[in-house]
């Protein structure tokens, strides 16, 4: 059962990381416009 001593803290760290990434994503507007970024990809076809 000693493995829990590693696994539980790791899962907590991952949880913290996931929350941090999500908060960053929302704050930086990643969910604001779900339509334009896909079009950007189409535009930059010459590796500019």
């Amino acid at each position, binding site marked *: 059962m000693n493995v829990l001593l590693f696994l539980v803290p790791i899962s907590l760290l991952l949880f913290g990381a996931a*929350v941090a990434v999500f908060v960053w994503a*929302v*704050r930086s507007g990643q969910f*604001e*416009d779900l339509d334009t970024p896909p079009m*950007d990809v189409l535009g930059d076809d010459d590796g500019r």
Partner: protein
Amino acid sequence: MAGADGGRPAAAPPACAHCGEPAVAPLRAVFDDGPRVFCCPGCAGAARWIADSGLGDYYRWRSAPGPRIGADEDFAAWDRSETLDAHSEAEGEARCIRLAVGGMHCAACAWLVDKALRREKGVLDVRANAVDGRVVLRWSPAETRLSVLLQRIARLGYRPSLPASAEREDARRRERNRRLLGLGIAGLGALQAMMFSEALYLDTTGSMPEATRDAFRWVTAAISAPVVFIAGAPFLRGMVNELRLRVPGMDTLIGSGVLLAWLGSVIETVRGGPQVWFDAAVMFVLFLLAARHLEAALRASGEARLDALAGAQPAMAWREAGDRLEQVPARELADGDVVRVGSGDALPCDGVLLDADARVDEALLTGESTPRRRLPGETLLAGSLVHGGTVRLRATAVGAATTLSQVARRVDALRGQRPPLADRAERLARRVVGATVLLALATGLAWAFIDPPRAFPIALAVLVATCPCALALAVPAAIARAQGRLAAEGVLVLGADALRRLAEVDTVVFDKTGTLTRGEPTLLDVALADGADLDAAAAVALAARLEAAVSHPLARAFGAADGAPVDAAGQYPGDGVSGRIDGATWRLGRAGFALADAPAGDDGAIWLAREGRAVARFTVDDAPRPDAQAAVAALRAAGLRLAILSGDAPSRVDALARRVGIDGSTARGRLTPAGKLASVRALQADGRRVLMVGDGVNDADVLAAADVSIAMAEGAALAQRQADLVLGGPRLATVAEALRIAREAKAVIRQNLGWAIAYNLAILPAAALGHIGPGLAALGMALSSLAVTANAWRIGRRRPEANP
């Protein structure tokens, strides 16, 4: 007619390489890839700049020709510090502004604007969004002026302006982000907390060492804390507010349930008790947030259109000042100002079209997105989009006086108003809240005597299980969805209780002219009476002058009137009009009205008479709307009885009834407004619930008398209609669609209420008897809320068999 076409040259002029408009006086310029033709120096200059800046890819990627570049415009007003303070935010040394950029509709445009701005000195960051036509611009005022940057955008042919409702947009975005954050944290946290709870569940034999068990419990407590206190903050805040106002409601119940479950679990953890309920707490929060998020999305889909109404009037306008153009805030426009609006832009005010005809998209008010051709002299509405070419118009209504603002205000006022049914459901839910708390307390007390350790979890389970969340969501979710769907069809609901009444209708009464027909009668034939001393054209001109003072649709058949207005003009609804011209009394109308010695019966024609003597006989007809037949069939298929009430000649009403498929015996003609009113009342006396569909001009009383009314409103008269629902577009089939949505909404509301009440009643005994733990209770309660919200999404979904 021939004159209008005659001026066109035989060979079409070449299209401008930049904006695609015909280059009447072509300008030629040589580029790397050969010569190009431009329509004006502006376009040539823009293309030269684009090529020289290495942005030539724009021409390959764009999906439509660029905007035509007009004369240089003056943006100096934007540099004034009060303008900057009001519309941009200081970020240290830099400033940030959100601009609406007209004409920027495709990804290539956004790319071009983005690149062009980035090349300017002093620009720190640009985000151009082609979907909503917004550019977020961060620049350093020390290095450049905002007017220079705007000039750059304008020289490319795009029109920068201020978004009309920046605060609203911001508030909406913040609100959405808050909800997303809460939901995300709840989701991630609940997942983890459930995982650790799972470990505790699986220890069915109690073989886990106590130290391990307690460690797991503490970890679960730590992980569920942010779910309860951060993600669950809206509920806790709501609870505090409700308790402060001493009106315990939904949030009190949810908040106390969550808090009790979490705190109780912490206490049990400290005590080393047999059970914890962190899972119940996190699940409660997660699923309720999900239900609220769904409901908010539902509401947003309905309100997007209303916000579009509010935001459609641009904040800035181009006003002609002598031979210059100046950009002024739209609210500074005055009646009579001449305003110029470019292609792709929204009109800042209502106004009369000048110069040339234009194509405008009035989708906002009518739901009809095909641009309509408007002639000079016609009134255009604020918020309409201009297609192809710049229009000039003289403002007739500005700011809050525009039709758009009036409609938006009416709709906005209604938004705050809740339908009686929703009120009843909420009052019921409120009462249930009190009962729930009492029940939970009573159950807890009872169990304290029977089996003290189980008293808390069972009381908690009762509290959670009987939470009437689904009951509170049942009606608003369905109504929000139904109104959103109707708005998408171009139907504005203006009466608070209109949906319910619409669902109960069993008879549909149509007005004829302007409702079943296009309301654009055409003059088919002119027959001069024997001994008439004028020719057909003169007779038509006289008729036009007589009708000029009248808003009746028939008036249009005679075309525009010239000459002085007639004296002593009189209007006799159902009969005709009269007036004095050159000293003689003229009458225009049905035979019995116009002629002194009228033949018996009604020939359906319109007579022009001088002093009672026939001068001319006009045959006028009005074509049915193209979808009238389909709409009638759809309504009949929906089990409705149909009737026509018209002021027109019975022979014409009969003919129309046959053409669209309505039983001729229910079609009545030659009715005065009072006669129509009496007919509707008679139907109601028979126990029928009547839906009146009219044009809203001549039949306001009848519309008001019917159980529920729909006005076919087009254009300028939209705001004045006194109907429960207003059909914005010219499509009659929408009536059947609206009826279907109303009926579905009614059915869904009934299902939702039934489900919510049945669920709460069924779960109560099970929870009170201790068969359902707090975790299961939370799951069931939350799923029941999700079920009613999801059920509401079904309203107005197109079914394949309904649309073959």
